[in-house]
Every structure is written in structure tokens, then in C-alpha cells.
């Protein structure tokens, strides 16, 4: 029965992905057309005549109506063809496959930090709610939420890369080249990205745990003679796991978006850099391809979260 329910969730989520992809790419496409600038001018090069620019515009179909251009892109994308960059002629899929691992590594590392640091902090604060350690943790967490990640990124670079020379300041190494190198390069950007995440996980976890710990069901656990450690780690965490999962899911989405800025600070050739460069040159197939890929990732992640909910909470099924 529950496996039937789970496949229903999968189907429903995947069906939802379609409209979301169309809407997201349409909005981004429209924005690209609204802002001034023309890819044909870039392609024609310096000192090109108006006739040459018009010729190129016609060649790439850029003189066709907006909606026709979009429909043509969508039609090809639906058939698995994300087109090629107008400027470099590189297939968009290849660009994405080259850039995405860099972004994913940073986000995954940042998320892992947020979870492994945020959970113990949240538990410590909740276990002594109202005490001094709680106040200290919450003050630091409030700071973490408030600090902008690009500013923190620049601070980290100044301190650990430029002054102490412990870690590289910028750039990235592909996992395929050197696993160690990839992690070393990803560490600082992940830290910059993780600070807000750690704070978020800590605050949300503390709030849900404090609520659970004062509930009648926990009074029953005390009545049974269980130790506070067992109540916290076995019952407390399992009861708030659904909330925690929601926070982590949203955090992943937010981190994916925030890499655009962090990648710029650390000069990492990830998805953020790819979409920013493409947008500057109105290279719309690349922009559309990146948006398409990001939406797919977010939809698949939400799907995974929904399935995990049913595992964590027997009441959801």
C-alpha cells in the first residue's frame, strides 16, 4: 500500500516538473529579451556594419518573434537537445556537465557542514534551553543568518588564503583530476556558503526540539525512566526529523542559488559563472539550459524529500 503511495508521489512530482520548467525558462527568456543588448552584436565582432549584424541576426533566427524563438527552443529541449552556445558553439549539455560538478561539490560540502555542525549545536542549545550555552549558540546563529555569504567569502580568502596561505584563494579543480585538490579548492567557498546554513539548521532544530521536549509525550518518556540523552537523541531527533528535512531541502535550494555569488568571489567555473557569463552576452541557449538543469535538480530533490518524509514519519504515507 505504501509503495503504491510512493510511486504515486513520484509520478505526481515528475508531472509537476513540466509546468515548472516551462514557466521558469519562459520568465528567464523574457527577461533576457527585455534588457538591452544583443548577441548578434557580440558575434559580429568590433566595427561590424549594420548590414552584417542584421545578417547574423537573421542567420540565428534572432529576428523572429520572441514567442517563436522560445517555442523553437522548448521544442528541441523536449526532444533532448539543449542546443549549443551561440558564441562558443559548444553544446549546452557539455557545458553543463563540465560546470555542474564544481557547483555540486561546493553545495554538497556546505550542506554536509550545515548538518554536521548545525545538529550538535541545535541539540546542545535545546538541551539547556534558557541557560548560558543556549544564549551563546543562539547569538552566534543569529549572526550567521545575518552575515552575507560573499562578504564572509572575502574575509575567509583574506585570512586563510592571502594572510595565512593555508588554502588556495580562487579557482577549482575537477574531482576527476584530483580528489584532494578538488576538496581543498572547494573548502573555503563551502565555508562561506555553509555559515548561513549552519545557523539556519541550529535555530530551526533548537526551536522544534524545545517544543517537543516540553510535550506530554516526552513527559511519558521521563515517566518510563529514560535518560535525557536517550530522550534527546532517540525520541527528540526522530520527532523533529520531518522539520529538519524540510529545512535541509530548502537550504539546498537556497545554496544552489547562492553559489552564483560565491562562485564569482572565488572565481570558480561552476553553474553560477556559466549562467552569469551567458546572460551578459545574451547567449540565451546557455541561460535556458542552465535554468532547465537547475529546475530539474530542485524538482528531483523535492521528490527525494517527499519520499523521505514517508520513511521518517509513519503518519505520512
Amino acid at each position: 500500500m505504501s509503495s503504491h503511495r510512493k510511486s504515486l508521489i513520484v509520478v505526481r512530482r515528475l508531472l509537476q516538473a513540466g509546468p515548472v520548467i516551462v514557466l521558469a525558462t519562459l520568465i528567464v527568456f523574457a527577461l533576457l529579451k527585455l534588457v538591452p543588448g544583443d548577441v548578434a552584436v557580440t558575434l559580429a565582432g568590433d566595427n561590424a556594419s549594420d548590414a552584417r549584424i542584421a545578417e547574423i541576426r537573421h542567420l540565428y533566427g534572432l529576428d523572429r518573434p520572441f514567442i517563436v524563438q522560445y517555442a523553437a527552443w522548448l521544442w528541441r529541449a523536449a526532444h533532448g537537445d539543449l542546443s549549443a552556445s551561440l558564441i562558443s558553439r559548444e553544446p549546452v549539455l557539455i557545458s553543463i556537465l563540465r560546470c555542474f560538478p564544481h557547483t555540486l561539490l561546493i553545495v554538497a560540502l556546505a550542506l554536509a557542514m550545515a548538518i554536521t555542525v548545525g545538529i550538535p549545536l541545535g541539540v546542545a542549545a535545546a538541551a539547556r534551553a534558557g541557560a548560558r550555552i543556549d544564549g551563546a549558540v543562539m547569538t552566534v546563529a543569529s549572526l550567521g543568518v545575518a552575515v552575507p555569504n560573499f562578504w564572509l567569502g572575502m574575509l575567509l580568502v583574506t585570512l586563510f588564503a592571502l594572510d595565512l596561505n593555508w588554502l588556495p584563494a580562487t579557482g577549482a579543480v575537477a574531482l576527476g583530476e584530483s580528489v584532494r585538490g578538488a576538496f581543498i579548492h572547494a573548502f573555503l567557498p563551502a565555508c562561506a556558503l555553509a555559515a548561513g546554513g549552519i545557523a539556519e539548521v541550529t535555530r530551526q532544530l533548537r526551536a522544534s526540539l524545545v517544543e517537543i521536549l516540553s510535550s506530554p509525550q516526552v513527559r511519558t518518556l521521563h515517566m518510563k525512566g529514560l535518560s535525557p540523552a536517550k530522550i534527546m537523541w532517540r525520541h527528540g531527533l526522530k520527532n523533529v526529523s520531518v522539520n529538519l528535512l524540510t529545512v535541509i531541502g530548502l537550504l539546498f535550494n537556497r545554496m544552489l542559488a547562492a553559489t552564483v555569488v560565491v562562485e564569482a568571489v572565488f572565481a570558480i567555473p561552476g553553474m553560477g559563472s556559466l549562467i552569469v557569463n551567458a546572460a551578459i552576452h545574451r547567449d540565451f541557449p546557455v541561460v535556458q539550459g542552465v535554468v532547465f538543469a537547475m529546475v530539474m535538480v530542485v524538482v528531483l530533490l523535492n521528490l527525494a524529500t517527499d519520499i523521505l518524509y514517508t520513511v521518517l514519519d509513519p503518519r505520512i504515507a
Partner: protein
Amino acid sequence: MEAATGHAAPMTTGPSGQTCGIARTELLDVRSLSVAFRTPHGDLPVIRDICFTVAAGERVGIVGESGCGKTVTGLTVLRLLPERSLRLSGRIIFGGRDLLTLSARQMRALRGCEIAMIFQDPTSALDPVFTIGDQIGEAYRAHFPTTRKEARERAIAALASVGIPAPERRCDDYPHHLSGGMRQRVMIAMALICEPKLLIADEPTTALDVTVQAQIIELLSRLSERMKTTLIFITHDLGVVAEICTRMITMYAGEIVEDAPVDDVLVTPRHPYTAGLLRSLPGLAARRSALPSIPGRVPQLGQMPKGCRFQPRCQHALARCAKPQTLSEFSASHHVRCTRAREITLAGVVTV
């Protein structure tokens, strides 16, 4: 006014000290227990000078209106209230030890093993994300280190003993799969799995359907008898007390006002408040169209009248009722906190 003085409770040699420590085999001996909640505006006394003993095998009913302190009394015996925000005084002697002086670890060893408690609402008292078998087995494993398999078998046996059909299968159900009555049965199974000496049942049927209430009462009564578990039954249902308890303690506004054998108090209550409660009982009172009630309202915490706390609502009140009242001996087994106890005759519900 008591909040201002800070220590409303006299220490162990209080005026009612003579009622404590009667020579018999007591399982529980509560002496001059007072509890106040600490607030930013000073202490808020909740129960004051609570003194009673429970002998092994007894079934004591604690009755009174909502907010009279019966639940706080029960929770304090198990020390289940957040102690950082409490001011506690008095003693709770159980098995020769004062529970209020035990360490957290010693107290844990006692909870669920020697003293257990059942709560009012079984729906919120169970953990929704663990199976009932797991939760019952956990109560056993907390005190007797054993394998998961044995704990599960014990949980199944416990479920069977509280009358849950197909316990092998039900064991893997989650609380939301069960009805309210079934959940309270699970709660009872959990509380009794270590065969505690004392079981405190705090309004175990209030949240249940009327049709289920009688079954749960019957089950509790039967199991406590079979396991020789002493029972403290906190309720506002005097009918249940009359049915299953041997003794009745009446509480009013945080104090014990009367403590007597059930048969005795039902016939001749000695405190006007107890008499008022009995009078307003639909089942036991004569069936008339309008049910008698006690006029007035319970005084608010922190705004208790000096002297007898029931005096503003009492039709027998005299000037001397404004002086502090003590819980004093009326007869060997009957104690009452009323200065006029020997002067007035009050109607009970059972006429001999």
C-alpha cells in the same frame, strides 16, 4: 499574600504534622509538601502543606475541581515537573527514602520501575513516530537490560494483558492506528510492564468516550489488584472513587481539606466542600431536574483568602474561619481541615 512571604509551607513540624507518620506499613508518606511556580513576579504557590500516607495495597482517590493541585501532587511525587522553575519543600518518603533528595539518576531508576504514572490524554502521551511495541518494550529495557527480542515478547504479553486483540500484530502499529481507548490501554501496559509498587493514574478516562471509560476503570482496577499495585487515582469523578477506591482525599485550592475512608466519607462527609461535591454528583445525588452546584468560584492562585480557603463559598462560615485551619484528626482514620467539623452535620449521598 503567600507569594510575598515566600515560604508558605511550614517545614516538617507543621501544624498538621501530627497527621503524618501513622504507625503502619506505608508505601508512600507525603509530608508537608508545598510546590510553588517561580515567576518573574514572585512565587506562585500551587499546593500547600500536602500531607498524606498511602499504605501498600491501598487505592486512594484524590478528588477536587480542575486546578486544585491534584495533578501537580501526582507529578511531584514522580518529580516530573521542570524543577528549575519550582520551589519545593516538604518530604516524599517512598520505600524509606525521601524522593526529593534523590539524584536525577536515582530518580530515573525509580520511575517506571517502582512508581509509574498514567496521564489524562493517551493521544498526546504516546510518541507518534515509534511503534507501540517499541515504546512498551523500551519501558522494560530502561530498567532490565535485555535483548530487543525479549523486550518485544514482553510488550506483546503486556498488550495481551490489557486486552488488546491480536497483540503480535498490534505490536507493530503506531499510536495513530489505534482508538483513544486502545491508546490508553497501551499506556497502562507501558506503566505496568515493570510491575511497579505504586501507580498514579491522573484522570485516565477524562479524554475518552463515555462508553470506554468504564472498561478502562475496570481494567485498571483488575490489573492493580492482580499485580498488588498500590493505586493513587486522581479524578474529578466521585462515582469512580466510590466504585474502586478505599480512601478518598479531597483537595481544594491547593490544600487537602478531607482525608477519609470512602465508605465513611460518602455517608458522613465532614468538610462542607466535600459535601458540596457529593451533592453535585448526578449519579449519586437524588435525580431532580436541576443539579445542585457550589456557589462562587475557586480563588485564583496567589489570591487565596487567609484562613479557610473555602470560606468565601461556604454556607457554614463563621468569623473564626478567617483564621488558618489545620488538617486535624476527626477520628483515627478521618482527617478534616475545618474548624466547625464537630459542630455541623453534613449530608452524604448514601443513607444508612
